[in-house]
């Protein structure tokens, strides 16, 4: 299920106003996503690593998450050096490697890891519930916030329903094979899950109407941006400005 291994903590980042953290993460990620220079990306990556260290996340968990994203990045390494022409070429048996392709792949790697790390440091350090309320305060459309919260609440219920169905087919001796019977059973499981989820949705909506829900969702959370939070924001903005400056100064 959804685990939130970084959400609880007492680091400098954890105690910063969540709104400030979300703004900081968005601004920084956008800047990094739009940069192409090696120097600026290296610097951004260093800032991200520094932030993750600052939030004192368990490194094992961080690496586990990075590994997942880097599986996709690896695909670029298999493709780009051979297909993206430019610069010096090296031959590797029957294949030709292009320098430009290698640089490009390296940049993608730096970029995606820098963004992921900053999101782990700034966003994953709050619970999803807090994130929902934060987005609400930042004027993200109410319906989207509501969708996020409800999804978070009911994904567990649906997972439980799924476990129940799986158990009930297991106790009747079902083992998946490559047979029509297996496919049919899985189709039933998915279908049943959809029906149950939709019926559940109806019941939940009714329960909400009974408690006077008229489409507006009120949040109880109060946020306070103290002086430290503002210092944090200024620091991140400075780092972002440096990334952008480097992008223009060192065109490599």
């Amino acid at each position, binding site marked *: 299920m959804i685990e939130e291994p970084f959400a609880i903590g007492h680091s400098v980042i954890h105690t910063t106003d969540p709104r400030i953290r979300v703004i900081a993460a968005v601004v920084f990620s956008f800047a990094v996503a739009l940069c192409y220079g090696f120097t600026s990306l290296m610097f951004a990556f260093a800032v991200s690593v520094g932030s993750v260290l600052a939030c004192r996340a368990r490194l094992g968990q961080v690496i586990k998450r990075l590994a997942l994203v880097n599986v996709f990045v690896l695909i670029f390494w298999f493709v780009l050096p051979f297909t993206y022409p430019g610069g010096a070429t090296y031959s590797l048996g029957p294949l030709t490697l292009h320098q430009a392709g290698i640089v490009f792949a390296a940049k993608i790697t730096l970029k995606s890891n820098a963004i992921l790390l900053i999101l782990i440091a700034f966003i994953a350090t709050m*619970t*999803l*519930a807090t994130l*929902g309320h934060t987005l609400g305060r930042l004027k993200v459309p109410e319906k989207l916030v509501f969708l996020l*919260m*409800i999804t*978070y*609440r*009911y994904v*567990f*219920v649906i997972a439980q329903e799924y476990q129940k169905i799986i158990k009930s087919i297991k106790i009747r001796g079902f083992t998946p094979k490559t047979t029509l019977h297996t496919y049919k059973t899985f189709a039933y499981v998915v279908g049943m899950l959809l029906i149950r989820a939709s019926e*559940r949705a109806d*019941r*939940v909506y*009714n*329960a*909400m*109407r*009974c*408690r*006077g*829900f*008229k489409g*507006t969702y*009120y*949040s*109880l959370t*109060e946020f306070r941006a103290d002086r430290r939070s503002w210092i944090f924001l200024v620091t991140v903005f400075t780092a972002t400005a440096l990334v952008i400056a480097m992008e223009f100064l060192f065109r490599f």
Partner: protein
Amino acid sequence: MNTNENKINHPIIKMRGICFGYSDASPILKDLDFDFFRGDKIGIIAPNGSGKTTLFHLIMGLIKPVYGEIEIFGRTMASETDFTDVRHRIGLLFQDADDQLFCPTVLEDVAFGPLNMGKSRKEALDISRRTLAFLGLSDFEKRITFKLSGGEKKLVSLATILSMEPEVLLLDEPLSGLDTRTRSVITRALTEMDVSYIIISHNINFLQSTTQSTRTLRDGRIVADDQVHVHVHDHAHVHGDVPHHH
């Protein structure tokens, strides 16, 4: 207060000639009449599928009768907006607590109703904390709703209803699947509160200790429960403190 309500002995819930069903061939409720007065505490004990839950949903306006008239707090219910006021004053406890709780934390869920009623954040928090304390759930504020046990979920669901300070409670199988301790918390809460209620339950002992009379549903109508003859006898055996039947 509304027009008719001040008249002595005028029911706060009045249902006349209610028909409801998903097909004409087998209606669930057929020509049902029902009067519910302020101060009434009644139990409904009837077989599965006899339309008990349907009755509650009709009162809350979640479903509309095919025929018939519903009058609540002296006002005839016609449109969805008529029921807005009803939902602020009548609290329905759902059978499945997972349907009722949807906020990440307990406190938010309990405050959801009061906030919808237009209470300020501070008022909503105050009343939510008081309600949680009343049910012995003071430490639960920050707990995550979906990580609660079944009994805890039920009590928190009850809290989400009580925090709206309803005049009438509709409780749909409030004890099903609960342990002795949770059952006794609910029983105590019901006997201590000054509120009218209707309870659907299969537990005769529970209805005996919380209600003035019981009804049943037969052939789509509410009738006095003359078929069930309850007799209480005291005797002792192991696990005797667990509610049970013989």
